[in-house]
């Protein structure tokens, strides 16, 4: 077996290992299915409730992506502002950190009062959870531009917007994409929390209803759906990141194609 194929199989093998351990724990300790269902029962629940899981999964995906999309735009803009000016950094950063430290689950009831139950609180919560990593990463990228590079630009008479467009944004892309991978997973957490607290649809809502009916296998099936969607989105952004910022991962495999020089 080649090194490459081990690399490729590794995540599936750990996934399989996880399932085996899960099963063993249930068998060894004789755990009841309404406490912890077996993987098989979970899979079974997933198949039985495939219809509701699919539609509610789509609903969760939609609210997550909307909240995430807003977080990306707002996060990028705030990150550029905070990263380009020391004054803005000093003025805004403590507030942003404070904002991020507030437990978002506690805010959901307030969002419900403001926006009513349904999709809007989920979107807002997804946004609230996911915008901070984007701000922090983009701001870091902007704040750590080499001073010499700024001097080169300034000595050419570059304006602030020249520096942002020609240096700041391209330089921040690797940081930006890294933050997207964190942000998308947090966005899922946000919308599912909101759906559990106050949703009338979505995976969180499925979990709430299933839980109150002691249908624990369905709760686990729902968790799996969220996890799978998270991994899927993560993989997409990982792929985009590789395509867009190949220059920053000049490592091993690219080097072989083009050689030294």
């Amino acid at each position, binding site marked *: 077996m080649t090194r490459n194929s081990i690399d490729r199989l590794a995540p599936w093998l750990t996934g399989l290992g996880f399932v085996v351990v899960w099963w063993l724990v249930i068998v060894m300790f004789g755990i009841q299915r309404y406490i912890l269902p077996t993987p098989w029962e979970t899979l079974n629940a997933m198949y039985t409730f495939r219809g509701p899981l699919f539609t509610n999964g789509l609903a969760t995906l939609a609210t997550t992506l909307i909240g995430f999309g807003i977080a990306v735009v707002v996060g990028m803009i705030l990150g550029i502002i905070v990263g380009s000016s020391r004054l803005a950094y000093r003025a805004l950063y403590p507030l942003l950190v404070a904002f991020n430290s507030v437990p978002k689950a506690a805010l959901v009831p307030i969002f419900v009062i403001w926006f009513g139950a349904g999709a809007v609180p989920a979107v807002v919560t997804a946004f609230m959870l996911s915008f901070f990593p984007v701000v922090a990463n983009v701001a870091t990228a902007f704040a750590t531009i*080499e001073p*010499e*590079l700024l*001097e*080169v*630009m*300034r*000595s*050419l*008479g*570059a304006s602030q917007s*020249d520096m942002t467009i*020609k*240096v700041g944004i*391209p*330089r921040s*892309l690797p940081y930006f994409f890294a933050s997207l991978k964190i942000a998308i997973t947090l966005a899922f957490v946000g919308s599912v929390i909101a759906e559990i607290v106050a949703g009338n649809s979505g995976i969180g809502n499925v979990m709430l209803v299933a839980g109150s009916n002691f249908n624990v296998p369905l709760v686990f099936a729902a968790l799996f759906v969220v996890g799978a969607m998270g991994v899927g989105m993560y993989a997409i952004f990982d792929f985009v990141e590789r395509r867009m*910022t190949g*220059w*920053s991962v*000049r490592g091993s495999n690219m080097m072989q194609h*083009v*050689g*030294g*020089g």
Partner: protein
Amino acid sequence: MTFIQLTDVDLVYGSGSNAATADTLAVSSASISVEQGEFVSVVGPSGCGKSTLLKLIAGLVRPSRGSVQVDGRNVQAPLKTVGMGFQNATLLPWRNVRDNVMLPLEIVEPYRSRQKQDRDKNIERAETLLTTVGLSGFGGRMPWQLSGGMQQRAQLCRALIHEPSILLLDEPFAALDTFTREELWSVLQELWLFRKCTVILVTHELREAVYLSETVHVMSSRPGRIIKSSSVGLSRPRTLESTFQPDFVELVHDLRHHIGRGKQT
């Protein structure tokens, strides 16, 4: 004709508003004059304010006292007619070498507004420049595929592509090995002989200063003052062979002596 004139320049870093960042006097009563088209080096012990001198000339910092004049005008804001080079090549890692070299053309007028029409002409101009520094065929490479010396060559091209009247170099070859460095001396000399722009080179390598310059200014340790200016009368083009001639060695020796004295004061 005097092109760059610093008169009695002081530069104080730090705002002075808090004690922890007590004001540092980086440059003190520095006076220097540079002729149009002259190649000048500034040497001195490390931390003596040599780099600050370049920033003053480029208009990136304003003097606390005294005046900085370029072409008869006081420098009030960053000049747009300078090219700069540093010890770090500071190439943009997401652009290939050619696009890096062409960066100034996207910013400096009149090139900026003619970018689209002149695209082919600009590429040709970049390639020509790359060829003169020995990088022909490397335009499509990414910066990280180049060695340190090649990155410095590319940086020189970027500094020169918009035909600046002043080239400011801050220890551009300091991080290179001796052989590469000496090779680049001759590249830089050739560029200067060909273009005749005014060059100010900050370095701590005395042989480099003498090899390349018409005039070498020696700065004292911080706060930096000019304590000695020697003109180098050696004929051009100079070669590595010239660095072993008695009058070359004599000049280097003499400068070394002055730097030693500057450290003591």
